[in-house]
């Protein structure tokens, strides 16, 4: 089967048939007119030979459709370049071993939900002893000292606490929405750390359902962790980065 990667199409039953399935709801009761409306909607989306495979009345004058059709557009897969980096992931044992061998002291991590945010589920999953999905939380790591400061912690207080505990890393969790307030609470921590001369002394890490590496860079954090993150991902990053910095310093 020869696939032309410069012109890929959706795949249904055979290569390049362009078959796609879409589903949507229309604010009209199910019936022949609704079916025709759905077909026309699909045509306007650019689908060829649209067929209504399923129509279901949702009640209250709404109906739901599943449509099969052919999308003739192609995409040049070869021209797509996405900046990406493989994250090093170590196991619980490997992380502790690396800290013992290379850092030779306990790694201190301070975590909190900052500002007005009270969604502690994320930070609890990473920090708490019992962990998440079979992976122990950072509290369980013998070579780490993890402090969970809880929710609604003001940024200035978090920094002061981190200094007091001599933290290597600060972990903040935040449910970022499109409202700028959440973003600005995250950027404030970075700006405060900078103003206090702390920025180069501590790793700043953010996490939350909308957080990605790219957003972390935009926010000014050293790393960002999104959905699906397990405690050992965070522990691996912190440990590997501290070791990298130690080695860079001793050069």
């Amino acid at each position, binding site marked *: 089967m020869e696939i032309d990667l410069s012109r890929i199409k959706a795949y249904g039953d055979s290569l390049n048939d362009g078959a796609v399935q879409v589903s949507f709801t229309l604010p009209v009761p199910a019936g022949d007119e609704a079916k025709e409306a759905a077909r026309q909607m699909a045509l306007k989306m650019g689908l060829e030979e649209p067929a209504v495979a399923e129509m279901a009345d949702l009640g209250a004058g709404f109906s739901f459709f599943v449509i099969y059709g052919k999308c003739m557009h192609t995409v040049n897969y070869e021209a797509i370049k996405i900046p990406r980096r493989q994250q090093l992931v170590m196991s619980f044992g490997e992380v502790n071993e690396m800290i013992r061998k290379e850092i030779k002291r306990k790694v201190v991590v301070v975590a909190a939900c900052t500002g007005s945010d009270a969604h502690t589920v994320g930070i609890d999953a990473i920090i708490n002893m019992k962990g998440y999905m079979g992976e122990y939380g950072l509290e369980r790591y013998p070579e780490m000292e993890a402090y969970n400061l809880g929710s609604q912690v003001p940024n200035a207080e978090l920094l002061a606490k981190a200094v007091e505990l001599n933290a290597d890393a600060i972990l903040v969790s935040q449910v970022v929405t499109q409202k700028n307030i959440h973003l600005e609470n995250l950027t404030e921590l970075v700006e405060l750390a900078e103003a206090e*001369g702390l920025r180069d002394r501590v790793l700043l890490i953010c996490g939350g359902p909308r957080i990605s590496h790219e957003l972390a860079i935009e926010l000014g954090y050293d790393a960002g962790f999104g959905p699906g993150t397990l405690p050992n991902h965070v522990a691996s990053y912190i440990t590997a980065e501290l070791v990298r910095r130690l080695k860079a310093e001793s050069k």
Partner: protein
Amino acid sequence: MDKLIKIIEEKDCRAIAIVGMTKNVGKTVTLNRLIAEFEKKRLTTGLVSAGYDGERFDRLTLKEKPRIYAPQGAYAATAGACFEAAEAELVLIETSDLSTPLGLIIIAGVKAGGLIELAGPGSVSGLKKLTARMFALGAEYILVDGAINRMASASPQVTDGTILATGASLGPTMEDVVKKTAFRLKLMETPTVSEALLLKVAKKGLAEGSAAVVYRSGDTYRVEAIKAAIPLLAVRQALAKFSKETAAFVFGGALVDDIITELMKLTPNPPPVIVKDATKLFLTPGTFSRFTDRGGRIMAINRLNLLAVTINPTDPSGRDYNPDIFLARMTEALSPCPVFDLVLEGKLKDQ
């Protein structure tokens, strides 16, 4: 645009920070215009971001964003993964020791112009290193694109001129946008300590400690430095030393609302507060005005060099303003600071 370039040339700024009031206020549009103007004048530009710029879609709103075109001959500092993925043809000059989630930051030369994504370091010290390297390589101007509402790249440690971008996405009404921008401008234009002797003792205090209390002593001043792990932890001690002779408080780090509130509890006539520069100010309008209404003054050791404000009358959520009215209102409210709508200027030129 010509006017903005003229301001940059007249003030002889070589490293320019473009900072924003929030997201989607046109930082990258301003950056692109400056890149194009410098290219026209055959000046070598160095590009770096304090955050992440040039990606096709906004990560949160999923709307298309302006991309960044790096012209041939320019320098760019960006994370390894962005270097690999750039559409512009880049040559690796050197790899820095600054790490990002997308790899170590690389300084590259642009061999053939094209689109580029700029992912920068999260720290002022990182930006400082990268700008210094690009100047050493031969960049004549360096443009530091900002991120969200972060101001740190405007620090005199990194850049010698700042452009502030603001726009409709900042608030629910035009008046709200004007008010918030005017307040930020007021903070950014915090005056330097004009009295030479006071400036000298303030600097001495911060050389010795994280904060300091300056006392009047006959015709001169006496300074007491306070040491702490970080400046915020020196505040309480500094304030406890307040007396009738206190001529000023000097804080080496962030100036947050709580400090001003505590200071105002000490005395009805608070002494001046001196900070390193305006990037250290984290005050809200209410606290700031309560302080200044009581005769309180805030001064800086180093000044931020604010060159101009650029405005964006459109908002991704669809709340757009009439560009002419917005420009007129902003110009009036921010006077004498020059205000530009670079998109509107471009349209007028094309007509």
